[in-house]
């Protein structure tokens, strides 16, 4: 090795991939490197190669019995008791069947004259400067999302809002480009999870989150 910095483009990209995997970059550079790993397959392959090389240090992480958070995680991912109005128990139904019924059940409950309470969610993440408040108007079937802290992402990136369905499948509710947005969201119900992910400009090209999920929140009555 010479005393000079690596100068070939390959070494430069590989050193950046290593820095990203190691985790030493400041947040601004880290977010850009994470986006590049998703968007640029060659760089993504470098990241995986470094994950595999450095995985040999993983024995330095000693296993410690985890608190049992499985129940809480499952309650978050698989809400089932949240729509008791018609006494249906979606949780007992199979995956695809349940998803297909979701639309039907929502339509049925639409026919009632009920005026539901407002559903709200707070989307935060301990480590995230960004936070959002969400409010779902059950009569108008519209969701309003308000940015309560933080700033929009850098040029070339968009925030995208998702609802995580009863089977854990995310559906896009649109891009979050303003401090306040209102979207039509007939599928929402109490107990469902809202999530905001960081995506390339224009939103996820795949229809599913491709960037990091920055924060999540659960829709609750009140």
């Amino acid at each position, binding site marked *: 090795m010479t005393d000079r910095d690596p100068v070939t483009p390959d070494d430069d990209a590989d050193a950046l991939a290593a820095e990203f995997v190691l*985790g030493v970059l400041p947040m601004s550079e880290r977010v850009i490197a994470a986006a590049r790993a998703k968007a640029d397959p060659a760089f993504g392959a470098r990241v995986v190669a470094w994950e595999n090389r*450095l995985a040999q240090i993983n024995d330095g992480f000693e296993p410690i019995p985890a608190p049992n958070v499985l129940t809480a995680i*499952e309650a978050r991912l698989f809400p089932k008791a949240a729509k008791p109005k018609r006494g249906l128990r979606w949780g007992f139904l199979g995956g695809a069947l349940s998803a297909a019924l979701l639309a039907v059940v929502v339509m049925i409950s639409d026919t009632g004259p009920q005026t539901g309470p407002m559903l709200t969610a707070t989307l935060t993440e301990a480590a995230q400067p960004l936070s959002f408040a969400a409010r779902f108007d059950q009569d108008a079937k519209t969701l309003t999302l308000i940015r309560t802290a933080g700033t929009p992402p850098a040029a070339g990136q968009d925030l995208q809002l998702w609802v995580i369905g009863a089977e854990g499948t995310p559906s896009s509710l649109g891009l979050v480009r303003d401090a306040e947005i209102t979207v039509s969201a007939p599928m929402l119900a109490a107990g469902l999870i809202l999530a905001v992910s960081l995506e390339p400009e224009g939103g996820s090209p795949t229809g599913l989150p491709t960037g990091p*999920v920055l924060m999540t929140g659960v829709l609750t009555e009140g």
Partner: protein
Amino acid sequence: MSDDRVADLIVAVSASDRAAFREVYAATSSKLFGTLLRILGTRSEAEDALQEVYTRLWLNARRFDPAKGAGMTWLIAVARNHAIDRLRARPDARMSDDEDALDNVADDAPGAENRLLALGDARRIVDCFGTLEPDRALAIKAAYLQGRSYQALAERFDVPVNTMRTWLRRSLLKLRECMDA
């Protein structure tokens, strides 16, 4: 079925298999909790992070490619990424703890390396760390195991951030050369 049970389970989770999700939690949560606690430092934050990591596993399992690496390697990468995102987004409140924490890495190193030595695979990285200057090998381990930033490492070793970055980038490429040889 492969001989990587965790990889098989993650693939099943990507097909929305809830039983596989429970099984992968049972098989891996201790390791991931140990990883998160080591980096984040408090049980309460590690517990929050653990929930988030398994939520991401459910949502993102389809991104796992068993041809590219082991299941446990991928899960630990997801956990480390999330823990480090949390650290980098923190105000600098915990900076003052860094020195103690880094000393702990130094103290831990023999134990950790003995564990590494017990595995054939890890022998190569232990040998390759031996080719680096000891301070720089220690800095890489502190970054990996405890999520130390360039800023924190520069303060600990009392050099400018850019110098630390140049050292570490060079050392990482040297490590790569040794490991890929």
